[in-house]
């Protein structure tokens, strides 16, 4: 008996019938509907603010009517002209641009060189103490960058701007301005902050590089230098280039370090200029700065994405027997250990130590018993104008801390849930367009430095739009900006978790008779508990230590730890500021360790892909 009988050829369903059938099928599953809803939320939270920035560049802003000769909302090239081609360009735009590029490129190159050497030492040699060193050396990565800027001023501040001098001046040495402020310290701090990043990315690539590949080269008669040049280097190039570009993109938008170190000598970067423009109500110019930062960020990361795609072409095959044979350092053992140890001292011990010590000393740099005090932590009735109690006893600190935890916490919770949901939709959506659009739009804030993003939010939500009232001055604008800013991490975590989940577990629940909500509640969420915790904690840590969003969007009513400490710096309450920063650092550090414990993976995995 033959089954396929050609005479029984069926009548094909018409296009209309097929469409109707698809709609009927889609209506039994809310996935598509939820996906479209999410898409709308992200268009509003992410795409709209960024588009507003670009629109603001080309339209006359409030207060600029006389200068531009148009009315508010008119099309104008005034801002672009002012930035690029006016008598003021050099001062207000080109100099900051040049400063930005200078510090970004220099710190990138320095971090790359030092970081690569360190990661080679850690991964491919028998360096002593490499076990704990490989953890110790990435600690700076978990700390806010401006911690180091503060440590620098604690140590090296000179008399130029008054207030308490740094330790070095306290000991009686005069320091020139270029050591204390501006490009030089900014580059050093940013280099220190990026080195762990290189260690993680390049170290990971080195670890994956099977030493059998090198052996194979040697067996075929290649010399050691040929192996290094023709085998190791090409295989490492993607990781190195990727680290370089990611650092560069991050450095372009870096705000806190140049803000702390550059202000006293009018050392401006694009990010600080943007902040200044917002502070002086120059919305149009702020849009230009934000736009330029965004464009540089987008271009850099597009290059990175493109290169990573190229790199996949020679993904290393095998990997099962990835053997990491270690090279003996021999006589170089001690110098190498000294180098790594020194890096640890410079990047972790000295800055954190200086900060910690400074909070228990009346006068900087004077190591006498009478000079030590716990007043700045737990003192009462201090002889200061404001902040008369130690920070642990001041209500301002605790309300800022509570605000931080409340705002960042709820934003992270939302971001984590949205991230997981995004992951679900991306993996399950019946329309491929919806999932790729969602994937891209949630990743987009990654291309936009925080400071530009904050500016975008300010422009869009400062005024009422339709049913949405003006949000400036409320915690809502911070909350929304934080959610949007953290979506790249949250959605990445969600997507990778959902990709690993697989269809079957959910399909079997469908077969058992569970509808969508029930499956989410009883199957998907419980299984993804760990991923959800990560998707919430990661944004939380980065939010707690972040500066850019808060400094632009927070007002005294929504004071958080970071803005509180920045304000203390501005008013020269050095000890108190450092104490607050240490508290932030502690939260970030503990949080990171908790994530590592929960997920069992290192930081490096999260950085890749």
């Amino acid at each position, binding site marked *: *008996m033959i089954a396929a*009988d050609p005479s029984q050829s069926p009548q094909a369903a018409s296009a209309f019938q097929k469409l109707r059938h698809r709609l009927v099928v889609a209506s039994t599953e809310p996935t598509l509907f939820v996906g479209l809803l999410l898409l709308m939320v992200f268009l509003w939270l992410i795409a709209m603010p960024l588009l507003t920035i670009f629109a603001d560049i080309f339209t006359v802003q409030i207060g600029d009517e006389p200068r531009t000769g148009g009315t508010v909302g008119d099309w104008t090239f005034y801002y672009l002209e002012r930035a690029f081609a006016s008598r003021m360009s050099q001062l207000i735009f080109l100099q900051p641009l040049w400063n930005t590029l200078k510090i970004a490129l220099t710190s990138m190159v320095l971090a790359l060189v030092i970081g690569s050497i360190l990661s080679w030492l850690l991964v491919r040699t028998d360096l002593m103490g490499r076990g704990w060193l490989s953890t110790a050396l990435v600690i700076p990565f978990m700390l806010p960058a401006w911690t180091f800027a503060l440590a620098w001023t604690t140590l090296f501040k000179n008399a130029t701007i008054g207030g308490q001098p740094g330790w070095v001046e306290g000991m009686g040495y005069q320091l020139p301005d270029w050591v204390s402020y501006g490009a030089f310290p900014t580059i050093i701090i940013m280099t220190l902050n990026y080195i762990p990043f290189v260690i993680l990315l390049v170290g990971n690539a080195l670890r994956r590089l099977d030493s059998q590949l090198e052996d194979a080269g040697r067996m075929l008669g290649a010399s050691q230098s040929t192996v290094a040049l023709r085998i190791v280097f090409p295989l490492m190039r993607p990781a190195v280039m990727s680290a370089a570009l990611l650092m560069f993109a991050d450095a372009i938008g870096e705000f806190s370090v140049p803000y702390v170190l550059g202000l006293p000598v009018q050392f401006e970067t694009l990010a600080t200029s943007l902040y200044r423009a917002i502070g002086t109500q120059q919305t149009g110019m702020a849009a230009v700065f934000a736009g330029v930062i965004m464009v540089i960020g987008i271009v850099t990361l597009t290059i990175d994405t493109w290169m990573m795609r190229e790199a996949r072409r020679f993904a290393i095959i095998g990997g099962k027997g990835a053997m990491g044979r270690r090279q003996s350092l021999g006589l170089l053992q001690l110098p190498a250990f000294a180098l790594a140890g020194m890096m640890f001292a410079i990047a972790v011990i000295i800055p954190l130590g200086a900060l910690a010590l400074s909070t228990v000393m009346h006068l900087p740099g004077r190591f006498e018993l009478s000079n030590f005090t716990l007043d700045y932590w737990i003192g009462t009735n201090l002889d200061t104008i404001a902040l008369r109690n130690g920070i642990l006893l001041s209500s301002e600190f605790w309300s800022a801390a509570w605000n931080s935890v409340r705002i960042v916490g709820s934003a992270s919770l939302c971001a984590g849930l949205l991230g997981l949901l995004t992951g679900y939709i991306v993996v399950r959506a019946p329309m491929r367009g919806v999932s790729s659009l969602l994937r891209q739009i949630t990743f987009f804030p990654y291309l936009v430095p925080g400071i530009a993003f904050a500016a975008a939010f300010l422009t869009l939500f400062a005024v009422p739009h339709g049913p949405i009232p003006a949000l400036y001055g409320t915690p809502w604008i911070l909350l929304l900006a934080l959610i949007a800013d953290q979506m790249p991490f949250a959605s990445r975590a969600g997507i990778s978790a959902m990709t690993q989940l697989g269809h079957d577990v959910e399909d079997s*629940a469908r*077969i058992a008779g569970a509808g969508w909500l*029930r499956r989410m509640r009883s199957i998907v969420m419980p299984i993804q508990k760990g991923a959800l915790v990560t998707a919430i904690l990661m944004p939380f840590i980065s939010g707690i230590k972040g500066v850019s969003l808060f400094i632009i969007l927070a007002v005294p009513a929504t004071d958080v730890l970071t803005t509180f400490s920045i304000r203390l710096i501005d008013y020269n309450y050095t000890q108190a500021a450092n104490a607050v920063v240490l508290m932030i650092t502690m939260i970030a550090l503990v949080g990171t360790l908790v994530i590592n414990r929960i997920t069992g993976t290192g930081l490096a995995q999260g950085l890749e892909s």
Partner: protein
Amino acid sequence: MPQITLSNITKTYAGSNAPAVRNVNLTVEDGAFMCVLGPSGCGKSTILRMISGLETLTEGEIAVDGRALDNVATGQFVPPEKRGIGLVFQSYALWPHMTVAANIEFGLKLQNMPTKARKARVAEMVKTLRIEGLEDRYPAQLSGGQQQRVALARTLAVTPGILLLDEPLSNLDATLRLSMRAELSRLHREFGTTIVFVTHDQWEAMTLATQIAVMSKGELQQIGTPDDIYARPANRFVAEFIGNPPINLIPASSSAAQVLISAAPTSLADVAMIGLRPEGMVLNTTDGPGALPVVISEILPTGGAWMVEVTYANGQTPAHLTHTTQSPPPWRVGDAVFLHPQPHALHAFDHTGTRQALPGQTTPTQTPLLRASAGEAL
């Protein structure tokens, strides 16, 4: 009682031009134990998923007892959670965060069964599938065989009228397979459920099913009893796919084929290929009509049976054939013997690959076209 009807069903996945399943018609009678058999990628799992509702149709209709579950033309679709069909996944798909008991209980909870009855039902299922003592374990703590029983228990707990099994035995080792196979037969007898299972393993299909539907490249090749499929393959694909070692195929134009077929009273002009089952031949030293003079080229013991490779070198193109026997062959490599085909083991295929009945042979059993009826359970 559930009877499943697939009418002209076609499935084309998005982004693919070739349909995964093309115009399949199949009726699974109530209480049948039907196997869909075919090589991997032939569309058999897709058929199972379409019956369960996890995949939708591109064309055609799936109905149970005349009620459409999925019909493209009329725009009907019942989502899987409302079909009440049981499906055991190849990967078992147990919920990793629930204990064995919770896994079994989940479906009952969804049916709002009272707690007491639920517990009783779980206990009953645990006993039936012989997984007592594992109730509080998590799936990760179970062996493959235990996981499969839990998957079965979970599905059977809600007493589905239709049970679908996706490669039910493929992840098990040889001993477990035997006991699970017996278990499935027993369950079929006890529950009287209509069972459809898919496999690429002919042995599994032959020993379990009352009816087998053989598929290739998305199309149905033959439906019949295991005996039908083996003894009266509809076409060359079925003949080649069933049987181990596979059937010997010789081009009809070769001199070896001419000799083999010469015993048949009439010659078939249309025949393109001759097939001969390895066990359907006798080797001895006496010549006779239809006997093929061959030389022993290899003797391979397979444990209780022997595979004898022979070569016919008289014609222009030498022919290599495989013979299997249960008794130790008295030959040595290089011995010249005569090969006598048994008429029932000889198959002729025309140019399209369709089997032509040789004189004295019957075509496949004349059940109503496209019907697979319920047979005796094993």
